[in-house]
């Protein structure tokens, strides 16, 4: 029986006919995506017999346009596929297409896309979140059962929270970054969005693993997470991070998260108060480091070998500076200039080096806390999905990531799990574990999802037959 909240597990174990499944999703995309804007390129074909998946438009897919939602790469067709894409193809997946995102993964709302914004399926006047907005919205709207995204400062967890789906960013280095367009190399990590933790586990264990083509890829065995989801909650210590409940977090949302934590306590977990004062520095440290790294990573876009080139360049400098000025959107330019500043002579020590020192303090704070508890918890985001166009000021937009960025700075695995609604919009519970402990997160989320059904909710307008 096919329905909008169909899981990959149900497709595989129910012995559903994969051609019928792919027709089902194709019809749903035809019927609904014009009102959402999740897909930017479609590659679904009739008679498809692979497991359905879709990829954020930051993953190189051989022969299929990969735009990063930017004019700079609007017509770029990669001659190769990302390692994680190849691994999932080998595991039996077929892509339905490429998904909308914030330009070059820089954003928290999917409003900075050259293809237009991605809307939140729960309220199409609101943002899907970012930068993996398309991935979250596509799963939430039942256009695809699982999607890949990337997370540099919260870009899987935040849109997952806004759209009411489950999202996981594994430990830095678990998934190969080869073939993923780079934003901030010490922070970027690929991950999964799906309805359930069980589906996340199944996809994650097939996409992770050492890759010699990515020198930051961890040489660690990948556990069979999907075989170890039945770990009991009783006795588990959950650290409730005080700073994640700060005054910037909406009180209605806080109540929903507190209810979820109380439920975990009823299930046998022990809640422990955790104080992490270093988290106050997360946003400034993140924006210096991410901008610095992006200024370096985006210097490859020069209009010479691929990507956008301006018309009639009068000399080489004009070729570079006009191609880049015309090819990049405002937020990308802001971050490149900020990063250029932070790395420039005279400012490097005060900004970049300082931020790297603060990064170590944040990392060490987390490690100390994770010696006392098994998992850290709190709201994923300070608000639910906000209205399109309502946040114009960059600094205000950056604050949307306040609960998520520190996890990337420390390289820890993090998840967002749907835990309820506040004023009709989904709320996400963030769970963070120590390095290489994705299993703890997935098992806890899975147990929570056996007792609740927030993750199966579908917006009313999307429930019907396509």
């Amino acid at each position, binding site marked *: 029986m096919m329905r909008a909240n169909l899981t990959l597990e149900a497709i595989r174990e129910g012995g559903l006919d994969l051609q019928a499944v792919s027709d089902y999703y194709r019809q749903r995309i035809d019927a609904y995506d014009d009102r959402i804007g999740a897909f930017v390129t479609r590659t679904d074909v009739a008679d498809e017999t692979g497991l359905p998946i879709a990829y954020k438009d930051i993953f190189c897919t051989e022969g299929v346009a990969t735009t990063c939602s930017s004019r700079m790469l609007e017509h770029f067709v990669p001659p190769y596929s990302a390692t994680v894409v190849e691994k999932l193809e080998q595991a039996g997946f077929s892509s339905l297409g490429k998904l909308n995102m914030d330009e070059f993964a820089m954003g928290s709302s999917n409003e900075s896309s050259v293809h237009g914004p991605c809307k939140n399926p729960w309220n199409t006047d609101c943002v899907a979140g970012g930068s993996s907005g398309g991935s979250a919205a596509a799963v939430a709207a039942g256009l695809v059962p699982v999607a890949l995204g990337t997370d540099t400062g919260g870009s899987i967890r935040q849109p997952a929270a806004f759209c009411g789906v489950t999202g996981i960013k594994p430990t830095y280095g678990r998934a190969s970054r080869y073939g993923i367009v780079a934003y901030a190399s010490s922070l970027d990590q690929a991950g999964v969005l799906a309805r359930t933790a069980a589906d996340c586990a199944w996809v994650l264990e097939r996409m992770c693993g050492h890759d010699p083509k990515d020198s*930051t890829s961890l040489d660690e065995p990948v556990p069979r997470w999907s075989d170890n989801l039945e770990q009991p909650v009783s006795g588990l210590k959950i650290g409730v991070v005080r700073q994640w409940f700060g005054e910037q977090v909406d009180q209605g949302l806080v109540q929903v998260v507190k209810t979820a934590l109380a439920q975990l306590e009823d299930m046998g977990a022990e809640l422990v108060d955790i104080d992490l004062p270093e988290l106050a520095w997360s946003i400034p440290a993140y*924006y210096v480091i991410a901008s610095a790294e992006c200024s370096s990573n985006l210097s490859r876009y020069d209009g010479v070998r691929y990507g956008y080139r301006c018309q009639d360049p009068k*000399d*080489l400098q004009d070729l570079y500076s006009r191609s880049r000025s015309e090819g990049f959107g405002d937020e990308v330019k802001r971050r490149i*200039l900020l990063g250029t500043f932070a790395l*420039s002579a005279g400012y490097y020590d005060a900004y970049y080096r300082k931020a790297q*020192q603060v990064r170590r303090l944040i990392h060490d704070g987390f490690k100390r806390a994770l010696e006392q508890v098994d998992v850290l918890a709190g709201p994923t985001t300070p608000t639910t999905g906000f209205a399109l166009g309502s946040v114009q000021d960059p600094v205000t937009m950056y604050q949307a990531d306040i609960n998520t960025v520190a996890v990337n700075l420390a390289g820890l695995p993090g998840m967002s799990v749907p835990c309820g609604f506040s004023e009709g919009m989904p709320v996400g519970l963030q769970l963070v574990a120590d390095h290489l402990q994705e299993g703890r997160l997935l098992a806890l989320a899975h147990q929570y999802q056996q007792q609740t059904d927030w993750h199966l909710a579908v917006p009313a307008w999307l429930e019907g037959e396509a």
Partner: protein
Amino acid sequence: MQIDAELIERLSILARIRLDETQNQALRQDIAAILQLVDQLQQVDTEGVEPMAHPLEIAQPVRTDQVTETDQRASFQPLAPAMEDGLYLVPRVVE
């Protein structure tokens, strides 16, 4: 920290991104606001703290000295905006 037009102009040259007067002004304001946010870091006591570049601090792995890259010019060059005889074309640099 004084964010003036001259600083933005210098940064735009370093970053090879051309800005007109309106963009320069808008960026001046934005960068000033972001730097105000970022200047909070100056309050943190980082005496003796080693900067952290990589979250897990693994060492750069080495590989065997073996040729693995092949000539893929035929698949890469169709992506180029301007090409001739296997060479990438740019405006004349040397007179």
